[in-house]
């Protein structure tokens, strides 16, 4: 029993990071029906930005409380990744908005490659370490071992998700986003500023990926320029499994994929089949429910 709970806690930690990144995929798809494959690399940039901010704040030697350094790094990373997301949309995707959708997807892959290689060229290929912003405390309860970091990650991730869910459902901006995603041709006629809302969507999605970068960096403190690729794919599957375009679906998908990653090696006694299981799940799901678990079917309007 304790063992099962231990696995579940591990899955929750990993799943919350996947869910944060899956949100960005889902939001952009919901509003532009485009898959932003550069999103995993925005997450990577977020992790590096958080590392800089943390190194800077800790380097000042002013004995800030740990929480202050954490929040400082979080805000710094979220702000700059938001700017990065908006810039990418402005420079790479907006000029192609009327082009066939495949052009935008290929551009997104190109932007991802650019971010990876730019980081490689400027920072170098050596793995970097996020400093221990918060001293690790080992806790144990009912036979389960966990750390304060794990709990922090899960709380911050779930907090951000609830906040986003509230923004989308209960604010004017959220309503505008939903309007564009419902019908992007009629929405501007109703006075919705389409470009501004799209920029905002990229800003929010990227900021959340930046937060994901910091949380991931705290849990797995070795950063490299290619770290975004694998996580990006897993988050993308999470978004599709949950129902791409649907925010609650992305969260559900993230936790589901976290569970697949943790439980496959347990049940099959080898981690070799993990990716195989995850991608098979995606295929089977798409055969039976092409819109994902929480996705609604769309109808071609005549």
């Amino acid at each position: 029993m304790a063992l099962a709970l231990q696995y579940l806690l591990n899955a929750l930690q990993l799943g919350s990071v996947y869910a944060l990144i899956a949100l960005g995929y889902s939001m952009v798809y919901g509003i532009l029906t485009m898959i932003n494959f550069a999103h995993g690399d925005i997450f990577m940039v977020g992790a590096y930005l958080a590392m800089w901010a943390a190194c800077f704040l800790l380097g000042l030697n002013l004995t800030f409380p740990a929480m202050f350094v954490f929040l400082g790094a979080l805000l710094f990373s979220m702000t700059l990744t938001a700017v990065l997301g908006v810039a990418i949309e402005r420079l790479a995707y907006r000029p192609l908005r009327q082009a066939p959708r495949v052009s935008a997807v290929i551009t997104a892959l190109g932007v991802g490659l650019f971010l990876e290689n730019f980081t490689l060229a400027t920072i170098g290929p050596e793995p970097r370490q996020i400093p221990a912003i918060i001293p690790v405390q080992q806790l144990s309860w009912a036979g389960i071992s966990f750390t304060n970091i794990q709990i922090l990650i899960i709380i911050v991730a779930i907090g951000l998700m609830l906040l986003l869910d509230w923004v989308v459902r209960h604010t004017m901006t959220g309503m505008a986003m939903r309007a564009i995603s419902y019908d992007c041709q009629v929405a501007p006629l109703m006075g919705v500023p389409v470009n501004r809302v799209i920029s905002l969507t990229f800003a929010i999605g990227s900021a959340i990926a930046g937060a994901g970068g910091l949380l991931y960096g705290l849990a797995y403190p070795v950063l490299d320029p290619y770290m975004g690729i694998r996580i990006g794919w897993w988050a993308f599957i999470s978004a599709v499994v949950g129902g791409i375009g649907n925010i609650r679906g992305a969260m559900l998908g993230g936790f589901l994929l976290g569970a697949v990653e943790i439980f496959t090696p347990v049940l099959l006694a080898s981690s070799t089949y993990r990716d195989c299981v995850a991608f098979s799940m995606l295929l089977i799901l798409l055969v039976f429910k092409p819109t994902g678990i929480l996705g609604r079917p769309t109808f071609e309007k005549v």
Partner: protein
Amino acid sequence: MCLVWLVFSLICCGCSTRTEPEVRLGINAELTGSKPTVGDSCKKAAEYLAAQINQGGGLKVGNKALPVRLFIEDNEDKAESAAAAAQKLINQNNVLAIIGPNASGNAIPAARICEDNGVIMISPWSTNPKTTEGKKFIFRACFIDDFQGQVMAKFARQKLRVGTAAVLYDVASEYNKGIAEFFKKFFEADGGKVVAFASYTTGDKDFSSQLTTIKATNPQLLFLPNYYNEVPLQVKQARNQGLIGDIIGSDSWGSQELLKLGGQELEGAYFSTHYAPDLASPRAQKFISEYETCYGKKPDDVAALTYDAGLLLCQAIIQAGSLDRGKVRDALAQITEYEGVTGRMTFRGSGDPIKSAVILQIRDGQFKYFATVQP
């Protein structure tokens, strides 16, 4: 001084129209990818050696002294790029011999290309038996994983006196997989029991699932035959999961990066490697101090092994007195004893040297000599 050598060798490389013969050596190194420190050490040690030879007037081949010219290729730490880099060095640069790749996953495919083309390849750091197995033109400067697995199994049983061990290894990498299997074989032959044998895939950062499974079997020892960029994460997560036993590893740990990324959790861990700077011979000490003044850091095992591989090759070229690949290969195969900076090597007809291993311990954030194990 060293800079002068480097500039000198760069000028030599700069003129492409030269017609005089030269000794063309290829370097196939992991300059980018997940083990950039390995490639960097390999490149620096090779450049140091070439500069040293050229400074001394060149390499004596027959009755002429020829300059050494290096062609450095990045294999991106990928099997297919390692093979492509070998192809390029052979076909475009027409090299006499290739030093590298270092990681076994890259060295094995590159070795196949070199063997097929009849080009000598010496891997400084690839310890998997498959690299040289059944090949005529492939050599290495390090011991092999059978021996390393045996050394660590013996060390765990006899020095640390543990009865149960768990292994976590990268199933997608030839090196990690090979050494994990040899460790298991020898540990169990010695009366121990491997209670958990868990795997992951290159690039994974979360090992919590495997470590939870391992913790449930309550092992006295954890063996992590994995690369320096992954070990710190594994050790941290193992400690966070409440695993308290000894942790040991293999020569893939031997990079200063490990200490930078590892921190407090690595204190007290042991690993086997090729040489210990603490007990270097006078010749090795000269190499260590000159390398340090040149590049501002101590040579790691890859740098020392690359230097040895290069010297071994140069000796074979001098003995062959020719730049013919077949003749140099035969001369190399005839070397039976060689005293390098990483210790004495004995060759018995195969491309694999027989040499001793050292066990280092991480103490006070540094690699400290612990024991030597003879073959």
